[in-house]
C-alpha cells in the first residue's frame, strides 16, 4: 500500500469506529439519563447515610439496645424499624411493616459484616460494624416476605434470616408507646 492510497481508506475505517463509539455513547447516555431521572423524580438512591456507631457498646444503651428494637411509630406518624444483625440471627426475628407507607429500616452489627435484602422488594443494604445502615422504602404488596443475611458472616450464615410481615394499613395498629410486634415471638 503506497502512502497516498492508504490515507483516505485508513481514515474511513477510523470514521466508522468513531461513528460506532458515538452511537454507543448515545445509548450509555440514555441509560444514565434513566438513572438521573429516577433519582430526581422518585428519590431513588443506593442506601448510604455514613453514620458511625461503636459496635462494641451497641447492646448497653442507646438506639440499638434490646428493648428498643422492632417497629416503632413516632408521633409524626413516621415508621422506623430498628434491627440488629448479629452472628447468625436477626433481633427481632419477625418485623411488622405497613403497606404503602414510607418505612425507615435502621440496621447495626455488633460483630462482623452482614447484609440484608427483603425478597420481592428493593430493600437491600450491607451492614458494616462501625456504621448504622439506613434504608427507606415503600412496601407495595402485603404478605410475609423473607429477609435473609446475604453476606458471608460465619458458619451459621445460611440459617440467618428473618420474616418481614407487610400488613395492610388497616391492620397496622401501634400500641400505647408506638410499638408494633409480630404475633408469634
Amino acid at each position: 500500500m503506497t502512502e497516498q492510497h492508504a490515507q483516505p481508506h485508513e481514515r474511513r475505517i477510523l470514521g466508522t469506529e468513531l461513528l460506532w463509539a458515538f452511537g454507543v455513547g448515545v445509548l450509555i447516555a440514555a441509560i444514565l439519563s434513566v438513572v438521573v431521572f429516577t433519582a430526581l423524580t422518585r428519590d431513588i438512591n443506593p442506601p448510604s447515610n455514613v453514620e458511625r456507631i461503636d459496635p462494641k457498646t451497641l447492646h448497653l444503651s442507646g438506639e440499638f439496645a434490646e428493648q428498643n428494637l422492632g417497629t416503632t411509630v413516632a408521633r409524626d406518624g413516621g415508621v422506623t424499624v430498628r434491627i440488629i444483625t448479629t452472628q447468625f440471627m436477626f433481633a427481632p426475628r419477625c418485623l411488622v411493616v405497613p403497606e404503602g407507607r414510607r418505612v425507615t429500616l435502621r440496621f447495626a452489627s455488633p460483630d462482623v459484616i452482614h447484609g440484608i435484602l427483603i425478597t420481592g422488594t428493593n430493600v437491600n443494604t450491607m451492614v458494616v460494624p462501625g456504621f448504622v445502615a439506613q434504608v427507606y422504602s415503600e412496601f407495595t404488596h402485603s404478605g410475609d416476605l423473607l429477609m435473609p443475611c446475604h453476606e458471608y458472616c460465619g458458619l451459621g450464615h445460611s440459617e440467618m434470616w428473618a420474616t418481614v410481615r407487610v400488613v395492610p394499613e388497616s391492620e397496622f395498629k401501634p400500641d400505647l408507646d408506638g410499638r408494633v410486634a409480630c404475633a408469634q415471638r
Partner: protein
Amino acid sequence: MRNVERLCLAHFWVAFAAFLAAAVLGTWQMWVRSPLGANVGTPGQYFLSVTAHGVSMAYVLTIFFIMGFGYFVAVTALGRPLPGKLWAWIAFWIAIIGVVMALVPILMGQASVLYTFYPPLTASPWFYIGLVFIVAGSWIWCVLMLVAMRQWKRDNPGRPVPLAMFATVANSVLWLWTTVGVAIELVFQVIPASLGFGQTIDAGLARTLFSWTLHAIVYFWLIPAYIAFYTMVPRAAGGRLYSDTMGRFTFILFLVYSLPVGMHHLLMDPEHGNGWKFIQVLLTAFVSVPTLLTIFTVTASLEIAGRLRGGRGVFGWITALPWQRPTVLAAGLAFVMLGFGGFGGIINMGYGVNAMVHNTSWVTAHFHLIFGGSVVIMYFAIAYEIWPSLTGHDHASSAPLRMQLWLWFLGMMVMTLPWHWLGLQGQWRRIANFNYADPIISGWGPLVIVSLGGGLVLLASALLFVRNLVILHGGPLPALQRPLYALAVHPPQRVPAALNGFGLWNVLVLILMLLAYGYPIAQFVITPSPGAMVHRVH
C-alpha cells in the same frame, strides 16, 4: 521460541490443575445446595470449598495463565528471546510457595473467609501471607514485561510495538496499579490483625481498599481474552484485523477506566455518600465503552474473513466463517456469553437498581458468564492455539476441541440463566443449605437442580479440556509452524507516542484515582470509624 517453552508450560499446567480442582469443587457445591444434596456436607466443608473454589479460579488459574501467556507473547510477538529468564523462574517459584501457603490453611479449614476475605472475620496469617507471595511473584512478571517492551523499543525506534505485546504490557501496568489496594489492606490491616497485633480492625476502610483491587482485577483476567480477540481470532478466521489503532485505544481505555471504578462494588455500603457512588456509576458506564468497541472491531474483522471466503449480503459472511476452527468457534460462543454477562452488568451498575440484585444469584450469574464464560473459554482457545508450538505436536483432529468448547458454553448457559431468575426472586449468595420448607424458597428447588445439571456439563467439559491438552504431549504429528498474530487491514507505519507507551495514561490514572478514591479513603483517616472486634476463624 526454544527458550520459554518449559517456562510457559509450567505456568499453564499449574493454572489448569487449579482450574480442574476448582471445577470439581464448584460442581460439589452446586449439588450440596440443591434439593438432591439437602443434608450432604456441613457448613464448614461448604465454606471451605467456596474459599478454595474462589482462590483457585480467581488467583491461581488467572495469575499463572496470564504470566505464562505474557512470556509467550513477549517472545513470539517481539520475535526475540525473553530478557531475565532467571527472574521469570524465580517469580514462578515465589508464586508457587504463595499458592501452597494459601491452600494449606484453606484445606485445614483455617481460612474459610472466602476469596474476598471479609474482615473482621480473620483467617490464619499463612493464608494472607501466601496471597502476598503470589502477588509478589506476579509483580516480577510485570517488571519483565516492561523491560522486554523497553528493550524492543530501544532496538526499533519509531516502530509501533506489536499489538499483542502492547496489550500485555498494558495489562501489567494495570496489575501494578490495582494490586496496591489489596497490598495496603493486607500489610497494614489484615495480616497484623491475624497475627494478633491488634484486637480491632476498621471494616469500612478494609472494604474500600479491597474494592480498589476488586474491579480492575476483573480486567486483568479479561485482557488476555481480548488479546486473543484482536490478534488470534482474525488470523484463525483467515481475515485481517479491522483497525489496529482502535485495538491500542481499547486497551488504553481499559487501563484508564477500570481502575477508578472499583467502588461500584460498594454501592450498597453504609460507609460512602451518594455523590461518590454516582461518580462510580458514571465511570462504570464508560468502562463498557472499550468492550463495546471490541465487539464492533472484532466482528468487523470476522466480517472481512467471512466475505473473503465468499460470504454475500448483510449476514452471509457469518455462515461463511470457518466455524470448525476452535479459535473462531470460541470467539463466537464467547461473544454470546459476553452479551448475557454484559446485560447483567448494566443492571448491576444502575445506581438505585443495584438494590434489586446486590448479593443475589443475579450477580453470581453475571461474573460466571463474563469471567467463567467468555474469558475462560478464550483461555481454552489460546491454550489450543499455542499448545502445538509449546509441545512440538499438533492436534490430531479439532473435533474433541470443538466438543469441549460447546460443552463449556452449554453448561455455562444452563447453569447461569436460572440464576438470573432466582436472583430477581431474592435468592441470596453463599448458602450452605437452603430451607426448602420455606414457601418462598421451595419454589427455587427445581431451578437449582437445572443449574446443577449445567454444573455437571461444565465438569465434563473441564475434564475433556485437560485431556485434550495432555494427549498433545505425546501426540504423533509434528507441529507445523503457524503464524499466530493477525495483520491489520492497514499495518501501522507510525503510531503516536500516546499509542505506543503508557506515560500519558499513567498520569491520567493517577488523577482519576485521586478524584474517585481520594476522599473515600481519606475519610477513614480524618474520622476513623469505631474499631470492630476481630473474629478469628483459625
